[in-house]
């Protein structure tokens, strides 16, 4: 993943989620880039997304 893309992604996630949630989501994205994820691993990402509260609704 290009460094600029990582930076932009991190910035957007940090704006919209708490720091720990943003880091968790970034870790999921990195994992997706590095590994072929199975259904359970994708389900874990979806679960995290729907459980996390956004801090910026706009």
């Amino acid at each position, binding site marked *: *993943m*290009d460094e600029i*893309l990582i930076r*932009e992604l991190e910035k*957007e996630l940090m704006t*919209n989620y708490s720091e720990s949630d943003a880091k968790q989501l970034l870790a999921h994205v990195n994992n997706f880039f590095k590994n072929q994820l199975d259904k359970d691993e994708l389900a874990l990402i*979806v679960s995290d*997304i729907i459980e*996390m509260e956004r801090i910026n609704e706009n």
Partner: protein
Amino acid sequence: MKINLIHIKSKNLRCPDVEINFQKNNKTNFIQMPNGTGKTTLINLIKNTLSNSWGNINEFKNKKTNAAEGLFVLKLEVDDDTLDDITFRIKFDFISGKEHIFTTTNQTSEKTGFHPPKNIRSFLTQDHIKTFLFSGDALDDYFIDSEQTAKKTIDTFSGITKLYQLTKELEIQFRAMMRGKIQGGTESLRKREDLLERREVQIKDGLDSCQGKLDSILPEWSRLKNIIDSRDDVTEDMNLKIDNKLEEIDDINKKIYANEAILAEMSKNLYSISTAWSSQSKSFLDNLAAAKLPGTSRSFFNDIAKQEKCICGDEMTKEKSSIIIDNAKDYLGDDDAGIVNTIKTTNEEALLSSSHDEYLNEIENLKTIKKDKDTLVQDYNDLIFDRDQNSSIQQEIEKFRNLNIKKSELEKAIKDLRKNDDETLAIVKNKDPINISSDFGIKNALTLVRDKIAEKEGYEEYLKKLNKFKEILEVSSVNARNQIFKEITNSVNEKISSSHQDKSFRIESINDSLKIENQGGGSGGQEVTAVTCFALSVLERSGIAFPMVIDHPVTPLQNAARPAISEMLKDLCEQSICFIIDAEKPGFVTKISEPNNFHDYLNDNVGIYTIYRTDDDVQQPLNPPSEENISYKGSNGIVTEDKEFFTNFSLSQEN
């Protein structure tokens, strides 16, 4: 990380049998192949092997020999701190139409399948490969906005394409996880909730009204009750009689409950209730006994075989008896008989323990007791009448009775409005709100509809959250792409400036396509330069130096524009492999003014290869290379690294 193509080999395929070992120090390589030799086949073999993408393999079949099998081998050297060699061997089975790929690394023995090392695996896709393996005479797409080739290339290498793939996979997973949840609007459910809430208000109003009426009569009722309870115009004897009567009624009620319990227990045996049932069952059991059934059918036939006369009336001969015994083996087993016996035994026991007369007696007893109770109640009412008829508080008593009836009615109404035991969740689920009569029923119905709304709104809330995450990926991608466009534009211009003599030639911008400054489009040379520099910049950014494999690098270019391209490839590429035809040599490989001499900058570290067919029906070079200058001689092709032969090579059939 640097990747070099170090070996290719083909056998029994549409291109000639070839084997080339690329020297590591040769940064620039020229492979000269006449048109019609199978150049495109060879390039496609490289392309498809690197991405492991195979369509119809018949395009690689040698139509002349119709060989059933073919082979292609490609070897890469990956320099990433440590040196790794990876070999892909593809065996073509043209009979089954299938290819079989095998992978070997210097750390693992040959394994079936496509197993590139993890560090380069993500780059070996069709989209990645077309960036460093392209045709110089088909670059138009890079300069047409609608094709979005530049954008697609940057998306592929930056990871933006992979982010979109993540979005799609998450959507699919989300739908799978939400399967069965409610989708769509909540309007109809909200409408029902509204109707139920209105009904709830009506019931509450009803309750309040009843409670209000009850509250309004209770003080008077209490006052009257106190007066009656504290009355002193009743004799002790009368009170005793009334108390005794109440006790008798209480006792007789107990008798009624006991009798009802006995009848309930007796009702479990249906033969006690109905003589018709018991006589039918008895008759059935008698028939079974007479027929010696169930027993087993086998024993039934065995018994018949022992009789003097057959069941049909004929004499039972030994022969007949023997046949019946033999055939009896095919009939009922013990298990079947066991089931029938269980039914039989259960029914026999039920019949034995049943007593219709006792049942009738208990019914009669109950009737008698109830009659006795009615008498007692009447006696009690008479006593009350006697007690009250001459009382000084007769009016109060009458008023109290009326109020008490009213109070009971109101209490019952309140009880019914609060709870109707029949209005369970299952009953009120689809019931019209107006027909629900209790607060209990309304609350059940509201619970159901609110659960559904919550479920539906939960789905929508989840979807909103997923969409927000997708939007974050999208915004990040757009922002990143715009910045990468600028950085790649700068990188391309740096490369052009360091390798191109025309200092006015620059890339104005990169977005969907490459835009050459001050021009609607570039010249052929500029386009090749721009695309090559673009590909190199993108690869450089990805941290991987792939070999640039270019087919027809300078076909559309005038000779004068060609040296800049070969010089640029020499200066900028870690490894370049150019597939050319004879006509591309002037200016590109050899000096324009001295066609027999290479450019000075191509005198060292350059790989020179000429491949031509040796089939009988193909024109052969007038001066073939000497045996010692032949690098590889296959059944239908020659590979030579002879520089002089390369320079002079020309076949009249070329165009």
